[in-house]
């Protein structure tokens, strides 16, 4: 177990190193990405340009720049943004983490419950109109781009029906810190939670349904029925419990990616300054230090999520336990 953990950490470091190098190279390979002129300002004189380039170390060879950036990121931890000069990248990311976590955890709870219910009902009533309806709605949920759904939600709750009794409680777009105002925190996040969860409820519902239907064809289901324990028990204790493995595995990976900033479109649409939005802004403005920080943060979480999923898999499926 310890060995497995150590091996994982080693893998993680390797992956993050690889990603950081690739990001770095892509940035400098992009034509027009040289930040000196943008930092120096519009119509800067050539001397100013040279000065800026020197100040930012942009006239040094690439490997040196990479090493310097990594040092600033990990060792001295004072890497600053190219675009918002003086803004330290790491504290900015750290401050954005609770916002992303609030969004993602809330949505995850919603879609776990929702996906479970949808998948279970659809799988259990396979072929019925209920099953078909649920699957159609799920498909619609999966097909709707999250930013479109978010904008439509905004249109309804912020703009058109904002003053109606249904939505007058919806506060202005943006994040309200929990410590400052728990109720406001909750109110501001409800609509983003629902929007983000919709896609996943559809997806997970369909996956669970398929998994469940497949599981219910297994012999042990027939055996369980032969024991006379009742169909509901058969469905839940034997069918669902066994299908959960695929469900939970998928969840772990999706959740990891989202915590790493994958919900960026939702964050942009709802004005939540989470890690995803930071990534989005940094990509728009080609702010290399910020890009590097958010990408490394994201890759850390994806690798971590993989690891956690493996551990959880072990708990859920005893057959895998002994393989360790």
């Amino acid at each position, binding site marked *: 177990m310890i060995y497995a953990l150590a091996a994982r950490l080693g893998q993680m470091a390797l992956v993050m190193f690889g990603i950081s190098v690739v990001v770095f190279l892509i940035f400098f390979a992009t034509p027009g990405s040289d930040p000196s002129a943008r930092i120096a300002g519009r119509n800067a004189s050539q001397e100013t340009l040279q000065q800026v380039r020197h100040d930012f170390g942009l006239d040094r060879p690439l490997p040196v720049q990479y090493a310097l950036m990594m040092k600033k990121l990990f060792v001295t931890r004072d890497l600053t943004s190219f675009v918002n000069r003086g803004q330290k990248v790491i504290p900015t990311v750290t401050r954005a983490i609770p916002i992303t976590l609030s969004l993602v955890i809330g949505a995850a709870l919603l879609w776990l419950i929702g996906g479970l219910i949808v998948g279970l009902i659809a799988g259990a009533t396979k072929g019925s109109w209920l099953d078909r309806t649920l699957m159609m709605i799920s498909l619609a949920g999966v097909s709707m781009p999250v930013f479109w759904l978010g904008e439509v939600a905004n249109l309804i709750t912020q703009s058109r029906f904002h003053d109606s009794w249904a939505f007058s409680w919806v506060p202005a777009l943006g994040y309200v810190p929990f410590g400052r105002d728990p109720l406001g925190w909750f109110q501001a996040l409800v609509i983003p939670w629902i929007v983000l969860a919709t896609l996943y409820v559809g997806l997970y519902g369909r996956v669970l349904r398929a998994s469940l239907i497949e599981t219910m064809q297994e*012999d*042990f289901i027939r055996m369980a029925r032969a024991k*006379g*324990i*009742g169909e509901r028990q058969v469905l839940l*204790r034997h069918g669902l419990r066994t299908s959960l493995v695929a469900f939970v595995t998928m969840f772990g990976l999706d959740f990891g990616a989202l915590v790493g900033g994958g919900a960026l479109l939702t964050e942009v649409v709802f004005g939540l300054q989470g890690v995803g939005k930071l990534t989005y802004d940094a990509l728009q403005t080609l702010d290399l230090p910020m890009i590097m920080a958010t990408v490394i943060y994201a890759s850390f979480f994806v690798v971590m999520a993989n690891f956690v999923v493996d551990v959880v898999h072990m708990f859920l499926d005893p057959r895998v336990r002994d393989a360790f």
Partner: protein
Amino acid sequence: MRFEPLLEVKDLTVHFRSEEGLVEAVRGVSFNVGRNEILGLVGESGSGKSQTLLAIMGLIDSPNAVLSGSIRFEGQELMGLPRRALDRIRGKKIGMIFQDPMTSLTPVHTIGAQIVETLRAHEQIGRKAAKDRAVELIDAVGIPAPRSVADRYPHQLSGGMRQRAVIAMAMSCNPALLLADEPTTALDVTVQAQILDLIGKLREDFGSSVILVTHDLGVVAETADKVNVMYAGRIVEEGPKEAVFLQPRHPYSWGLFGSIPPFDGPRPARLSAIPGAPPKLSALPKGCSFRPRCPHAHDACLQEPPLAGPVGHRSACVLPDAAIEELAPRQEGAA
């Protein structure tokens, strides 16, 4: 005292609607099982023996299945019984075990948990008591270290142990009847013997009857009291084990027993087999379904032959008894 049989199956028919037409898996099967009796149901694949068992338990859930006939268990009609009532009988009065013990057990629950589940579904019994009972059962089927095995998962046991565990699970509520669908097919020979012993002793230990479905004649010879031979969905011969084995009446049985390689004597150059293949269940031949392969077929066989013969030992063949005497191959006496 009532001597009515434990299980009375009358004219059981199971058809499946399919693209090719009606698949007649079980055609008018009738038999009885008494208390403490072991019935062997023999036949090759596709003869309808497994479907018969599933029909008794009501486990045929295909929407294209059409069942008819009567299945009376302890005087109660099972055919058409609603699910709720059926669940009170399943596991409690009638137990069932299947061919592959690995796939019969839910991989994510412990052995003990699965036995406890059956117990608590049918009896008012606390968790601790149920667990203790489960351990007893595991012990009763001959598994060593029963308490630790109870906390193990199915994949952690060997094939033989698993099947024992499955038997323990099926017998946990002392059902009067156990349906065993090819219980030893997936096991190796040495383990087979042990399991058969176990099944054989269920009569003594639990007082239950058993319907043992198999294509393995040796299994039947070992364990059964009565034998029904099935072919193409019908029972073609039925009778006490010794009678059927030593004096088979039906040409199909002759072919079956003839194909058993001799235990001693010169080694045959080829194994004898019945020529031809069993008919498609969706396109059965007119009359006796064995007619195309029967060396003794004649026109009378175009009519479906009823079961006929001395009391207790009948066959579905139009050959008169004398002819049967004449034509039956000599059998070595089985010990």
